[in-house]
């Protein structure tokens, strides 16, 4: 498989996952505001700014918007094309990557991605958004999930597909860890909070909803919302398909399908780092994590995920290019030699 093609499939899957995650985060937090009364301007900023921070684009945001109002944040995360990670930008990038590998994906997948693209590119999208933000997010989520489903159900599960899996699970693990970090300001730096206010409970349940984890959580822990159990579920659940552990296990599996190397061994840095992170998550406990500080732990997880992505790139995608000028020189040297020997 061409390295460039693998790269495009990886990013296509990653951007779709990103669009869906951002749609969920904004949707849930808009709804949450309806439940929190008496929020002054400062309170609103405290509510919205962490959401921008969670997407990792704070600097970009502050360049465009001096105040973190609800309007500014949603505009930035949903429509603004200056933000390369807004929903609209993500869908455009996913399609651009799909276009580069149009021959590798199925008609069904391409059609649906194209449909979603035309939906966000036309004025209809803004109208839907104005009339009912939640209908708008519903459309984005449904479209993205449809694409994720089509990737599973219509694409042949060959090497390229596994690269798409790597992209999907890396992005999902990263976003879950960032969503979980949304309310770290309400936690002590190390250890667990002593008491939980009603607003806290609402906000931690919003975190679960932002990960589509509400129903799954309730079935295991019942209706009690506590940062400890929420974090345990979103970080360490073996079975929940959006928990960090689940995603990293799948990511590790995909890397091994690509190389054919068994678990427990490694032949490149991507496998080594992914294997290590799997072990840390599988043999870690939530109390240890809180003892060391949840926020710092999540920061470290994000760093490790980035490193896995970079290592994968170096292993499979990046085959040293000579700059054009140098490549021309190499060719001229070769051709000159041949002429001499002919």
């Amino acid at each position, binding site marked *: *498989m*061409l*390295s*460039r*093609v*693998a790269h495009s499939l990886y990013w296509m899957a990653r951007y779709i996952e990103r669009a869906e995650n951002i749609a969920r985060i904004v949707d849930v937090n808009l709804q949450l505001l309806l439940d929190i009364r008496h929020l002054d301007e400062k309170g609103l900023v405290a509510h919205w700014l962490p959401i921008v921070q969670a997407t990792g684009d704070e600097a970009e945001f502050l360049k465009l918007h001096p105040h973190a109002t609800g309007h500014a944040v949603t505009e930035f995360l949903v429509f603004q094309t200056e933000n390369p990670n807004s929903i609209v930008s993500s869908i455009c990038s996913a399609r*651009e990557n799909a*276009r*580069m590998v*149009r*021959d590798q994906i199925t*008609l069904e997948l*391409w*059609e649906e991605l*194209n*449909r979603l693209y*035309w939906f966000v*590119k036309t004025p209809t999208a803004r109208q839907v958004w104005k009339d009912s933000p939640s209908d708008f997010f519903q459309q984005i989520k449904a479209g993205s999930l449809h694409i994720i489903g089509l990737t599973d159900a219509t694409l042949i599960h060959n*090497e390229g597909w596994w*690269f798409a899996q790597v992209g999907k699970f890396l992005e999902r693990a990263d976003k879950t860890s960032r969503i979980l970090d949304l309310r770290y300001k309400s936690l002590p730096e190390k250890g667990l909070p002593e008491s939980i206010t009603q607003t806290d409970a609402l906000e931690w349940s919003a975190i679960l909803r932002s990960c589509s984890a509400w129903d799954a959580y309730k079935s295991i822990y019942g209706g009690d919302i506590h940062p400890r159990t929420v974090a345990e579920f979103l970080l360490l659940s073996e079975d929940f398909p959006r928990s960090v552990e689940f995603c990293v296990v799948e990511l590790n599996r995909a890397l091994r399908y*690509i190389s054919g190397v068994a678990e427990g061994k490694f032949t490149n840095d991507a496998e080594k780092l992914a294997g290590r992170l799997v072990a840390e998550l599988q043999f870690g406990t939530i109390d240890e994590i809180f003892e060391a500080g949840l926020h710092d732990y999540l920061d470290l997880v994000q760093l490790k995920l980035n490193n896995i992505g970079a290592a994968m790139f170096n292993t*499979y*995608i990046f*085959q040293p*290019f000579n700059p*054009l000028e140098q*490549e*021309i020189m*190499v*060719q*001229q040297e*070769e*051709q000159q030699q*041949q002429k001499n020997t002919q």
Partner: protein
Amino acid sequence: MLKQYQVNNGFDEMLDPKAGVRSHYDKFHQLFNGLTPAEFEAKRQAVDMAFLRQGVTFNVYGDAAGAEKVFPFDLLPRIIPAKEWEHLERGLTQRITALNLFLHDIYHEQKILKDGVIPEFYVLSARHFRREFVNFNVPKDIYIHICGTDLIRDKDGNYLVLEDNGRCPSGVSYVLENRRALKRAFPNMFERIGVRPVDNYPQELLKTLKHISPAGVADPTVVVLTPGAYNSAYFEHTYLARQMGIEIVEGRDLFVRDSRVFMRTTKGPQPVHVIYRRLDDDFIDPTVFRRDSMLGVPGLVQAYRSGNVSLANSIGTGIADDKVMYYFVPRMIKYYLDQEPILPNVETYLASEEKDKKYILENLPKLVVKAANESGGYGMLMGPKASKEEIDKFRELIIAEPRNYIAQPMINLSQHPTYCGNEFDGRHVDLRPFILSGERTTIIPGGLTRVALRKGSLVVNSSQGGGSKDTWVLYGDE
């Protein structure tokens, strides 16, 4: 539905002004008239939606915002009876045979020049003549593997050749997609009318490409080389690659070592043997042609010269696109094949011949002037429709650089019923058949019918407001 339709001027593909509907349109005409306007509208919208959703698009240069456009598609097919098609097939085969012999000759002995049939000056001054390839033997002596030849019809319905595209002709993906769309829109017409299929084109193309694989390679790796996703024909490149089941690569996916071409894959470098390149000569190798080309592959020409990789089309075929060379094709046919041309050229004047130049300059408002090496409807003067300033500009251009211009009388092109808003009206059409030269010459039945959607316009290029139609070649004559 078509009852109101009338011939307004020139030759009409469907209607004979005296005898009514031409016999090969009869069945279609009947079936189509059975549709209600609402049914037609529903089909039309469904097809438009399908094209947009499938991303059957082309890019317009110089249009930054949302550069992709859907190529407008008209639902009424252009129909060609079997006998007419046989005539075209013979004419096109004759023409491509002569062109390939001509290319071989001018890159070897240059007999046609020595015998004075074509003045030497015209060939040696042609922009796309590649001196570097004189005496180089291309695989199997085939220069143009894929050719798109544009045909038009004059006021009496005679087919004329307008130009040959021997570099990277595009449009064949629309032929295949248009057919798919019409099959969906009118599923039961095809069998009743007896339309020849077109969908084996990708297999034929792959066969043509494998035919030139380098000596000793039993199972060649064939790839499509594209300039990239921003090229106007990118959709077509991926489409063909997918249909043939081969990789589509960009220049940066390939590199050359020891005169062999490799592609960069996740499993390391893999050898490549045949390249269907959709990249002009100028861009293909920065060590040989344009040094600033970012799209090409350094060393590719050397690999080609060494016989380790084959290219389709070969390097240096652009000279057959030269509109001055076009003038000489009937002479080539006579010289190499000792035959009369089956498909005549449009009457053409060369600005570098004194007598012709005088005529051209005196009659500019009546003529169509074309630059010798432009395509896509660029660099053209339509005398009868041009302003005085445009005519004066071309007068200066011609005087400054006569070698670079030809002129032809304005041909009115045939017209075809076309859906225009809420009625059917005549619009001008041309036809681009696609000719493959491999072990034998194969021509996909029909080709791309392009239609000028603006009333009275004679410019059918997609970049200039043209659309397309499905082209039906019938098994029989009615």
